[in-house]
């Protein structure tokens, strides 16, 4: 239909060339957005609330970090502190980290990268967005109207018996948004199976598609278990049926098993698409094919598969059998292998390359360093003897922030900067974006390195007061987090600024080979004028040819 609009009409040409039609201006009005079935518009619909959730979650942590400036606590009462770190965790994990890359960048680019017009089920995609919005609004309301103080992990029997806050509403919000992720997963799997353009064989899929595909399976297998575990807490709290509370005949450890059965793979939900982004960006700015494509693709599935078999490493001191602990420790070491393979392959891609350092590349190089650091500290936690000591201390906090924030959020920033010109048709400020990347990496190290020291010295997590000898490291960490904050706030200015004042983006500003770049910026309503025919594997930079260029 759009092609018709673009074909020269026999009638005499108008005096001024009409504005080119693309997905943003093809129709107007609120209803055209709220009822859209266009995957690109839905991605934009996700981008706004997810960004808002990121800054709300960050606000709660800013309060917590300021509070920890002094050993006796500078700012908050014990209960307010507990509700703040809980709000931070729940918002960041369930409403930012898990959905952000699949729902925003995946939604927008998965169909484009395989040469499709849309996702397989566009209506289902819109339903996913509404579920996310309902879950997010509901949870946010519950958090503001009283809050919840269980920590994002909702451990029983504290959550089912002891906590007197809005446990049930918040849990329902998490379940509702979980269904949004699950539906997105179904949609992605069907799309990758059914809607690949002619010639887009499995081993011509860009790595970002591979990682989203693996992520979708985790959504599909894991989210129902999380929903079940959480609904059982609700049943116990509301109806008094004994599931987890030993006083009612339940088993508190059952909750931990069920919760981590999803929530550990969820860590890989968060990091896998980030790895996909890095695997797109590094070849593009190194002007070179990704080294070891097949190994990186299989490593993604290695991570997704093994990721389901390591959940009990969260429970090494929880009272599980020591033999079970030994098995889970070994598996936790093994799940690190595919990640190591990926890091080595990204590094090898740079060998004899021709590297430029635009903002997306800086973010992704930062990702490799931070992710490597986070992954290596994970080996300490896989080691039983050390994990027993640092379990539930700041060492664990620092480790998973290296993966989720240093890794995932940095990769997301890289992806957002990489694809921004395609999404909006505008170029952002080169100088400010590079500055933001540098500030984020420096601020990140300053924030989280001190927490490793704190953790090994024994400072437990979730403490609103602490022993005086921990103060120096806490002050350092808070100082670092203020730098990190500046790094995250900068894009909030220069990216929207670019929408109005930025240079118009060409179709392919980075000279990338992916199909998503072989159409106008911003793309047409149906993505491509003609269905592309794929003739090359991805990343054929040495040939200077896109995937569909004969």
């Amino acid at each position, binding site marked *: 239909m759009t092609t018709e609009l673009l074909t020269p009409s026999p009638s005499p040409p108008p005096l001024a060339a009409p504005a080119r039609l693309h997905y943003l201006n093809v129709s107007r009005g609120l209803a055209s957005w709220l009822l859209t079935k266009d995957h690109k518009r839905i991605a934009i619909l996700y981008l706004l609330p997810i960004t808002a959730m990121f800054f709300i979650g960050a606000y709660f942590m800013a309060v917590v970090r300021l509070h920890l400036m002094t050993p006796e606590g500078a700012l908050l009462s014990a209960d307010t502190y507990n509700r703040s770190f809980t709000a931070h965790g729940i918002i960041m994990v369930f409403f930012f980290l898990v959905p952000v890359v699949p729902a925003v960048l995946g939604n927008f680019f998965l169909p484009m990268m395989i040469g499709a017009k849309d996702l397989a089920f566009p209506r289902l995609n819109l339903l996913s967005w509404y579920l996310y919005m309902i879950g997010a609004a509901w949870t946010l309301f519950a958090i503001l109207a009283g809050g919840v103080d269980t920590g994002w992990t909702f451990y029983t*029997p504290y959550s089912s018996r002891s906590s007197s806050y809005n446990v049930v509403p918040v849990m329902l919000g998490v379940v509702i948004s979980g269904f949004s992720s699950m539906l997105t997963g179904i949609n992605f799997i069907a799309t990758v199976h059914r809607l690949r353009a002619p010639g887009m064989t499995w081993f011509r899929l860009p790595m970002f598609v591979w990682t989203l595909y693996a992520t979708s399976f985790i959504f599909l297998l894991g989210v129902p278990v999380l929903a079940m575990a959480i609904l059982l807490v609700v049943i116990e709290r509301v109806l008094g049926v004994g599931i987890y509370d030993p006083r009612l005949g339940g088993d508190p*450890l059952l909750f931990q098993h069920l919760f981590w059965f999803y929530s550990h793979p969820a860590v890989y939900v968060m990091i896998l698409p980030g790895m996909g982004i890095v695997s797109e960006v590094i070849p593009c700015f190194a002007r070179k094919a990704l080294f*070891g494509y097949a190994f990186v693709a299989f490593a993604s599935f290695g991570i997704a598969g093994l990721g389901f078999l390591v959940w009990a490493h969260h429970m090494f001191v929880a009272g599980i059998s020591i033999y079970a602990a030994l098995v889970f420790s070994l598996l936790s070491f093994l799940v690190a292998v595919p990640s190591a393979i990926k890091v080595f392959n990204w590094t090898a891609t740079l060998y004899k390359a021709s590297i430029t350092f635009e903002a997306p590349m800086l973010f992704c190089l930062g990702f490799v*360093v931070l992710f490597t650091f986070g992954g290596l500290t994970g080996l300490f936690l896989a080691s*039983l003897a*050390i994990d027993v*000591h640092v379990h539930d201390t700041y060492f664990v906090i620092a480790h998973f922030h290296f993966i989720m924030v240093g890794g995932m959020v940095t990769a997301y920033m890289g992806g957002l900067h990489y694809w921004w010109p395609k999404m909006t048709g505008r170029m952002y400020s080169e100088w400010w974006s590079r500055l933001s990347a540098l500030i984020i990496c420096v601020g990140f190290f300053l924030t989280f390195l001190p927490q490793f020291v704190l953790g090994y010295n024994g400072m437990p997590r979730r403490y609103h007061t602490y022993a005086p000898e921990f103060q120096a490291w806490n002050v350092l960490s808070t100082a670092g987090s203020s730098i990190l904050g500046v790094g995250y706030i900068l894009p909030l200015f220069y990216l929207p600024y670019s929408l109005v004042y930025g240079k118009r983006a060409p179709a392919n500003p980075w000279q990338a080979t992916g199909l998503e770049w072989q159409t106008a910026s911003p793309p047409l309503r149906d993505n491509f004028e003609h269905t592309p025919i794929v003739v090359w594997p991805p990343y054929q930079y040495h040939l200077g040819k896109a995937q569909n260029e004969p």
Partner: protein
Amino acid sequence: MIADIAIWVPAASTNARSVDLLTLYLTVVCGSVGLLVAVLLIYFCVRYRQRPGETANPPPTRQSHALEWFWTLTPIGIFIFTFLWSGAIYYAAFSPPADAMPLYVVGKQWMWKFQHPGGQREIGTLHVPVGRPVKLVMISEDVIHSLFVPAFRLHMDVLPARYTSAWFQATRPGTYHLFCSQYCGTNHAGMVGKVIAMEPAEYQAWLTYLGEGSLALQGRQVFLKYRCLSCHSATATARAPNLEVLYGAHVPLRDGRTIVADDSYLRESIYQPSAKVVAGHLDVMPSFAGQVSEEEIIALIAYFRALHAGETPPRVESFPPPTSTPPINSTDAAP
């Protein structure tokens, strides 16, 4: 013991040194790998940066399966070695020696309560001897807590309705932090205490100063107080099983199973007597849930552990007065 700025947590138990050694090893290995990646990354970025006027893209690097397998198998080798080493330390750290001195811990929101084998009780502060293995047997009255003594590299969750255990052997006298590390509500950060490791002679003197008799003796009083003897007597016509030399024995159940009479079984049989009824007996015992406290249960178990054949008191014995009164000064004040 407690420095102004925490640099390296004191190592004050036998396990602490093994853990620290493993940590140092892993720091060196991970540090080298991390450094290697960082140096390569920076070197490549500088060496292979795009020069002005460069137009053609570089040819692809030849894919190397040998290289891929090298960096797949090498980490696996290192990981398995590390796993075996850390697994061995962990196994030892959770296998208490047979002669370990039992010490009982009850956690509740938001305090720690301790019971020594001699019957001495403390809250918040735990006195332990140096150079002697100590086994902690722990239970919670409400939600999950976790007993964490960083200086001993000792860490174990404390669960409601189930005993967990951990052991340590202190090596250096001193005062060390004791934290609850499993989030347990409002004053989680206030659920902290001290472990005071003392020379054995000093510890003995401290015990004598508090002089309580023994935990088993207290358990005997609990046993009499709740009139357990009405049924669990040593007479031929007793309504309930004889409890002499029961602890650790194999007990046949009515449903045909056989279980070991350990701490958990004894506790369960007091709170939920119907759960596992002994073969040849009827399910008539009332539940004592809500009446007997976790601390009384621990005393009772200590009593059963010490109850030899022929030692069950005769039915007629009256309830004896307490053998001692609690000291007036706080339990911290050792002589």
